[in-house]
């Protein structure tokens, strides 16, 4: 298991999990979320290929109501 930070909270993930895998585990549809991985925004196409490493910082954001 590795420890990563997702939306500001530490989480334990299996080593080798990809961002796509993380989204799946969280029940998030990739098309409705933007992923910032270690301060880099990922293209939808890269979610499958991007492996999460120990200590990575992942931010998962979307649009909410605002003015």
């Amino acid at each position, binding site marked *: 298991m590795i420890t990563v930070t*997702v*939306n*500001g*909270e530490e989480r334990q993930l299996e080593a080798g999990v990809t961002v796509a895998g993380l989204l799946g585990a*969280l*029940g*998030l549809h990739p098309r*409705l*979320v*933007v992923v*910032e991985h270690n*301060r880099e*925004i990922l293209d939808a196409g890269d979610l499958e290929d991007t492996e999460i490493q120990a200590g990575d910082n992942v*931010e*998962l*954001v*979307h*649009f*909410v*109501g*605002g*003015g």
Partner: protein
Amino acid sequence: MSSQTTSEPAQSAQDIPLVIAGREFRSRLIVGTGKYRTNDEMIRAIDASGADMVTVAVRRVDLDRTKEEGILYHLDPERYFLLPNTAGCYTADEAIRYARLGRAAGMNEWVKLEVIGDQRTLLPDVVATVEAAKVLVAEGFKVLAYTSEDVITALRLEDAGCAAVMPLASPIGSGLGLVNPYFIREIKTRLECPVIVDAGVGTASDACLTMEQGVDGILMNTALAEARDPVRMATAMRLGVQAGRLAYLAGRMPRREVAVPSSPVAGMLD
């Protein structure tokens, strides 16, 4: 028949459309999507407002309530042009980061740039706003910049390549209306890009009076979301914005301190 369509004839007959960065908008009223009591009320209010551009914020997905839906579940992107904002950002870097996330989340390169300088007044940090605007314009963003009523900052934001400059009527969420019509009028006179008044409008007469200054449009959120009846207020705002726009184009009568009769003085009986 949706109430939104009811005013188009008047609109189309007597005014030109609002154009920002080459894109045409049917409505001069732009609305936010925050602070509504329910999503249903929000949808009906936005429909009533006639707006075709709406602002949204970028925030973390709530991982604990994953059934929670983002705003996209409620707003048809075919119908509404979504304008991501950088609300809540206090530095240029932070605003730039949010602008990029907004671009990735949305379908366009537009951003409502906000760099806040003070938590109590939510007034813009004009220096950081100009700085962030330059970076974002260089990255190809269409920047609509929230700013103070300062004419000089407005000129610099235009020089920085902003697609629109958005001075406040009064502080965000205050509902104090148009406090400084002189500076708003001066900004409109001096800039070539569209001027959209953003923040502070509290009721329909505020919106009407603001448009009478000659500005190109108004962006509001709290005045709708916090009205006792947001849908009715949204209709009022749609009509008030059109009324003010047309009154500006029509050219008002002169003010006088002496009365002038409306009926003929000649032809009276003995």
